[in-house]
């Protein structure tokens, strides 16, 4: 099975894959993790990451790998739990989600600056990348740091992200 994931690695940004030390085994873990969380969705986050690929797909992979690693750091292997347990665990360890949001959008910040010459604050990208403000609020209230949010640039950031997705 590792061959499947080794091939899938090629769909993503090699610079980020190297920087975050993402392996074929990590991709396998992400697919299993998302299968637990979202097996009943028509299209889940893993399927979307693989389908989109490139830098945007990579940003999703960075989010998931960061979250899984953060949980493992506190002694939790999320692959050993079912959906109901993970609802509770993710609530109790919500910093794992916020760390994942941070790494995902820090990467997107760098990519958009490099590719399009447009630099947005991380919090602005968190809001632009979501269709509601739930994650932004979780992000802004976290203890990870103080973030600047450019409310008047959200639409501009959203357009840049759409461009990155090739839409």
């Amino acid at each position, binding site marked *: 099975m590792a061959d499947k994931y080794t091939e899938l690695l090629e769909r993503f940004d090699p610079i980020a894959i190297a920087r975050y030390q993402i392996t074929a085994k990590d991709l396998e873990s992400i697919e299993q993790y998302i299968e637990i*969380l979202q097996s009943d969705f028509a299209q889940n986050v893993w399927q979307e990451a693989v389908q989109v690929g490139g830098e945007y797909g990579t940003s999703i992979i960075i989010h998931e790998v960061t979250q899984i690693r953060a949980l493992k750091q506190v002694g939790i292997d999320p692959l050993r739990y079912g959906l109901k347990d993970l609802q509770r665990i*993710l609530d109790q360890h919500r910093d794992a*989600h916020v760390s994942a949001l941070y790494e995902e959008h820090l990467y997107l910040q760098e990519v958009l600056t490099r590719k399009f010459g447009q630099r947005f604050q991380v919090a602005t990208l968190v809001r632009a990348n979501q*269709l*509601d403000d739930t994650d932004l609020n979780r992000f802004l209230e976290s203890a990870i740091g103080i973030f*600047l949010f*450019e409310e008047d640039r959200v639409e501009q950031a959203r357009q840049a992200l759409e461009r990155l997705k090739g839409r």
Partner: protein
Amino acid sequence: MIRIRRLQRQDEDGKWFDDSYAIQASDGKVTCRYNLTWEYLGGRLNYQIQQSGLPLEELEQVFDNPRMRWLPVETLDMSFEQATEFLDPQFHIPRLKKRVTLQAA
């Protein structure tokens, strides 16, 4: 009085359990409150709900999944804030503590 509608999913054994809920504010706006297993798909659901402008009773038109089910509308004798404070922990939805918004120069 506040109106809500629970969304249930099935666990590994096929047993239904409460996963998230939609709540209607006094201005009529319906929002789904979801836990962290949804990731960004929760935001997508909220966008669809708000774009459709549909009431709680018709949420199946926005989100109909054979492995999930909407329960009938419930009425709670609470304010919006009281209801979310009461329900969010039951659904493992992280509560916001504060919000700090700074404008970049």
